[in-house]
């Protein structure tokens, strides 16, 4: 295995584009090293991104939007009070990833690019309308987060392409988001279902919403029908029931040892309701 310490995204893209065998990028390494250890993925070229300037930075621009570096670990997101105030749902999704030790390393970008349908930070990013900037041999392009994973372990990145930044839009007023996952254990477990909701209010009425589900399909889903079920409502009981029905309908899970397909479909609706209530409360100014 060749270990490369890239000093720019262009260099990292060049190394990846010219590499012949199995290539991996190294952010926190909490997926890569586990896969190496298991013999699942033995990279010929491993390209460490953490020496690239800016990869450890979180910046809020003048318009209120955020740029998150690709090497910022979960623990640092949680320690950023401004980010937690703007996007609590995004942060709480990432903070559910692993233990304190894993939080010291694991990144949003790694969680996204590993391509797990159960990745805990991805529904929050999708609901937030986050995008990624991709650098490749042909220059750079921007993609919505929901278009990055294309199947378990697969992404829309072409050979030589890598993510150079995550962008979160400006939060704006009267808005809130939330992520909930269901796991048998409260810590150190993989989501049976995950759900994130982001919404904006005008008075008591929801005027914008995005709903995302994890672990119920080959990729994390953006469920427009679930958002439509609550837009224009005050999140009354009828709207919550319609939301749950739309979320359950969109869920196309498999059955495995963590839960049957029927169970996951039911839980998708339950979590959507609960996450929507939390997001609504936050939009109203609740701090929880």
């Amino acid at each position, binding site marked *: *295995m060749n*270990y490369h310490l890239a000093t720019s995204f262009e260099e990292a893209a060049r190394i990846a584009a010219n590499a012949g065998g199995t290539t991996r990028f190294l952010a*926190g*390494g909490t997926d890569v090293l586990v896969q*190496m250890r298991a013999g699942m993925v033995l990279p010929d070229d491993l390209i*460490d991104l953490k020496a690239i300037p800016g990869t450890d930075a979180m910046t809020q621009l003048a318009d209120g939007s955020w740029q998150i570096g690709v090497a910022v670990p979960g623990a640092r997101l949680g320690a950023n009070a401004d980010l937690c105030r703007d996007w609590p749902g995004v942060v709480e999704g990432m903070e559910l990833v692993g*233990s*304190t*030790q894993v939080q010291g390393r694991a990144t949003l970008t790694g969680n996204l690019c590993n391509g797990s349908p159960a990745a805990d930070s991805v529904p929050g990013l999708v609901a937030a309308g986050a995008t990624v900037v991709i650098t490749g041999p042909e220059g750079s392009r921007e993609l919505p987060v929901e278009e990055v994973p294309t199947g378990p372990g697969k992404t829309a990145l072409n050979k030589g392409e890598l993510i150079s930044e995550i962008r979160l839009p400006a939060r704006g007023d009267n808005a809130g988001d939330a992520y909930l996952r269901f796991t048998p254990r409260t*810590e150190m477990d993989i989501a049976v279902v995950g759900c994130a909701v982001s919404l904006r209010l005008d008075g008591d009425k929801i005027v914008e919403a995005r709903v995302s589900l994890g672990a119920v399909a080959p990729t994390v889903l953006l469920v427009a029908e679930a958002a439509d079920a609550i837009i224009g409502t005050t999140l009354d009981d009828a709207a919550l029931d319609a939301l749950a029905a739309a979320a359950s309908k969109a869920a196309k899970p498999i059955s495995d040892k963590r839960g049957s397909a029927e169970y996951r479909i039911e839980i998708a609706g339950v979590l959507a309701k609960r996450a929507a209530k939390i997001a609504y409360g936050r939009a109203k100014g609740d701090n929880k």
Partner: protein
Amino acid sequence: MSKHHVTTTVNGDAVEFLADPRETLLDCLRDHVGLTGTKEGCGTGDCGACSVELDGTLVCSCLVLGVEANGKTVNTIEGMASGDALHPLQRKFIEHAALQCGFCTPGILVAAKALLDKNPDPTEEEVRYWLAGNLCRCTGYDKIIRAVMDAAAELREAA
């Protein structure tokens, strides 16, 4: 397979070693630096026996490559006592019988110290969540939590 020359500071001492890029920091500490206090339980980030601080952040050394430690500071269990004087956490673990086989103990001590350095007055719940990535097959955890709470109280009095 070319080896990489790695320069680090381990428990305050400058340390150099040659690492195969596939070797973890845990392998390097144990096999090249000769510090075997850091243990390997799972090798996959699940048990916390390999916990160390890397540039002041608590990590699993089995999930860090040796080459990634180049130019960084590593603190291991060997750096915890001052000479023969045990750290209050170490003393309280003995007093409370917070270990049986002891395999998880170095990792838990390093992790608990990282918590108390950051938060000298944690609630029991905070201690339990902080240590959720440190598995112990022997003690049932209660004695560990009590030892950490007691050490925290003693450290606060001394401060």
